[in-house]
């Protein structure tokens, strides 16, 4: 059974190599078959440590399988399969290779049994994914990718420092419960938090994802943040601070999403909002809450991928993605419209769609554990997400005013990928038992309770009613060609401007100081020359050099004359 010892990232890294040297149909066939083969392989892998070796004084475990990591690995395979199909038309080797490396790195990270291995894949994730942004090949994508890379690498470095402190404090590098006690725990928490898009560290996501290529964003939406969610679920379950961070994550992005014009950026904000629910679940830390987090991550990767795919299809076909430029596309893109609505219903957690059966576990756990205000906040966030991702996205892209754009549905491979994702969204929503069977804990939770179904439907319908009412009254904020400043303003504008001003002052002072020094030196030299003048009279420096030469000649002549006389 040597096959079992092959970690799941290996097939994908081999896939990256294959993608680099092949092209055309052969490459497509090989790329689609890799997630299938890898998933079949994974289904046979039992829970255990499959690979370990000693490194210096520490035991490294590059490949360790348990229920939590398996759950993420399954959905990563699904996401990879769908995204690869979605990008089959792409003729850009750079993107194909980067996508395979990125998927492999995500899988490597969720099976990492020690912090050093985790760090390696953490950085691999950053370096492989940035090419999906740069592959857009615009100046803006280049700049956004650069900022993305700096922040991601910074997160990795903090993780490495944290891991080293952790090894010092605990004498082991094994990746299990870490907790916030001690410096190491705090550092690793910050590293995970950056990748998880915690508030104030979230702008790498909203900045870079919408700048990536059409297909790149679909890959990006699946892995980075979910690896961070997985890492938090393993290292910090039951950390109360996470409940408040998660609630903040669920709430503040919806404000930005409502007024954002770039529809892929709206989805990026709603991604943070959804990850917020997962983070709350980790913070609560009970079996039900962790199940909620894991199943929500599972469902989220699929419906968020579907939404990014539908908006990608719009960008691909129409060449624009701003809400202000779009509208009326349902007329010529009916299939994309329908598929987008399935994604929108899933993210909004409508009964019979995937979000409903996963998000409700986190909400129920918040109530059961007495976090009433958090529950109320999450309920507000649920209504809010329906408002911006559930209604705004399909409405402004496909309905609203007729923009006059008449483009057809995207190529078949893109449509097929969306159909698979939509089918999974409905399947999970209708038959949640299939998802629940894979979860780490047995809780016997049933989402289809009459009270719950009614409550959620009421909440969503009346949230929609608010949208209709505001729209009919003409007070709904229109889509405008503008950007909204977020926290990244501090590092993109405020800090550079401040540094500029500080350096301007420093350089002015420096210039004045140097001038003062030079003029003082000058004055000093003149002073010396004057003194010299007084002493040496005729040979003084104030006479031209010629006179000195003359005097030397006179002295030599005199010397010659005297020697003759002698």
């Amino acid at each position, binding site marked *: 059974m040597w096959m079992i010892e092959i970690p799941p990232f290996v097939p994908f890294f081999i896939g990256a190599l294959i993608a680099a040297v092949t092209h055309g149909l052969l490459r497509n066939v090989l790329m689609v078959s890799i997630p299938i083969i890898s998933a079949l392989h994974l289904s046979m892998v039992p829970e255990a440590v499959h690979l370990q070796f000693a490194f210096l004084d520490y035991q490294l475990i590059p490949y360790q399988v348990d229920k939590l990591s398996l759950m993420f690995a399954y959905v990563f395979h699904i996401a990879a399969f769908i995204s690869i199909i979605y990008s089959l038309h792409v003729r850009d080797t750079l993107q194909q290779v980067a996508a395979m490396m990125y998927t492999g790195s995500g899988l490597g990270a969720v099976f990492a049994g020690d912090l050093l291995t985790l760090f390696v894949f953490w950085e691999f994730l950053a370096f492989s994914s940035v090419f999906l942004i740069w592959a857009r090949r615009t100046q803006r994508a280049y700049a956004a990718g650069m900022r993305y890379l700096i922040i991601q690498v910074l997160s990795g470095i903090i993780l490495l420092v944290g891991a080293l402190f952790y090894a010092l404090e605990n004498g082991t590098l094994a990746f299990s419960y870490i907790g916030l006690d001690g410096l190491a725990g705090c550092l690793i928490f910050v590293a995970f938090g950056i990748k998880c898009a915690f508030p104030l560290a979230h702008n790498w996501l909203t900045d870079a994802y919408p700048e990536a290529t059409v297909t790149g964003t679909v890959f990006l939406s699946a892995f980075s943040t979910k690896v961070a969610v997985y890492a938090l679920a393993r290292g910090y379950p039951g950390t109360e601070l996470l409940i408040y961070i998660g609630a903040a994550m669920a709430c503040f992005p919806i404000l930005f999403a409502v007024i954002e014009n770039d529809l892929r950026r709206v989805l990026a904000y709603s991604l943070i909002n959804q990850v917020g629910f997962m983070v709350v679940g980790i913070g609560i830390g009970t079996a039900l809450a962790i199940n909620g987090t894991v199943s929500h991550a599972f469902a989220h990767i699929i419906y968020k991928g579907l939404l990014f795919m539908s908006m990608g299809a719009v960008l691909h076909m129409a060449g*624009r993605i701003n809400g202000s430029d779009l509208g009326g596309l*349902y007329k010529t893109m009916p299939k994309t419209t329908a598929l987008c609505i399935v994604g929108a219903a899933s993210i909004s957690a409508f009964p019979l769609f995937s979000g409903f059966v996963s998000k409700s576990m986190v909400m129920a756990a918040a109530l059961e554990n007495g976090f009433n205000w958090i529950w109320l906040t999450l309920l507000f966030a649920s*209504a809010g997400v329906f408002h911006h991702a559930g209604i705004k996205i399909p409405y402004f892209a496909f309905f609203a005013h007729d923009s006059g754009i008449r483009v057809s549905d995207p190529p078949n491979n893109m449509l097929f990928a969306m159909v698979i994702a939509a089918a999974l969204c409905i399947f999970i929503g209708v038959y949640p038992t299939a998802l629940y069977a894979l979860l780490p804990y047995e809780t016997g939770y049933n989402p289809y309770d009459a009270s719950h179904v009614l*409550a959620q439907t009421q909440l969503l319908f009346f949230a929609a*009613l608010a949208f209709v009412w505001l729209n009919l009254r003409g007070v709904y904020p229109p889509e405008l060609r*503008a950007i*909204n400043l977020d926290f990244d303003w501090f590092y993109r504008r405020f800090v550079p401007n401040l540094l500029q001003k500080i350096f*301007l002052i420093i350089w002015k002072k420096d210039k004045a100081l140097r001038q003062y020094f030079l003029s003082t030196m000058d004055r000093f030299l003149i002073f010396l020359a004057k003194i010299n003048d007084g002493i040496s009279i005729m040979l003084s420096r104030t006479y031209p050099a010629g006179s000195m030469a003359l005097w030397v000649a006179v002295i030599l002549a005199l010397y010659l004359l005297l020697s003759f006389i002698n």
Partner: protein
Amino acid sequence: MGTDKNHLFDNAKNVKRFLYLFYGSCGVLFILDFVVHRHIILSWENLWGFYPIYGFVGCIVLVQAAKWARTYLMHPENYYASEGKGCEIMAEFEDPPGVEEKSVEEKHCTKPGDHNVDD
């Protein structure tokens, strides 16, 4: 492409029908509140029309808050595009005045057609 075929929502009647259907559903859902016996955990849930009102009011508050935030946060699209400009220190490193600056539109905006480097 059916350039100007009449589509579903081109007809104002269809929009109205859709809206009436929607209002009707909202009404039914609200009435169901009094019919269905709820299993509740929090006493708030038993308040008269708690979920519908929370959803409705929550969204109005959200939109108004976002509109208010827009007055501070909204800036022209090329706000960051001028990064590094107007910096006196960097003036000597910038292009000589003869070199024509590309407009922000040209530099950063994706035109239909060039967005896709893929095929």
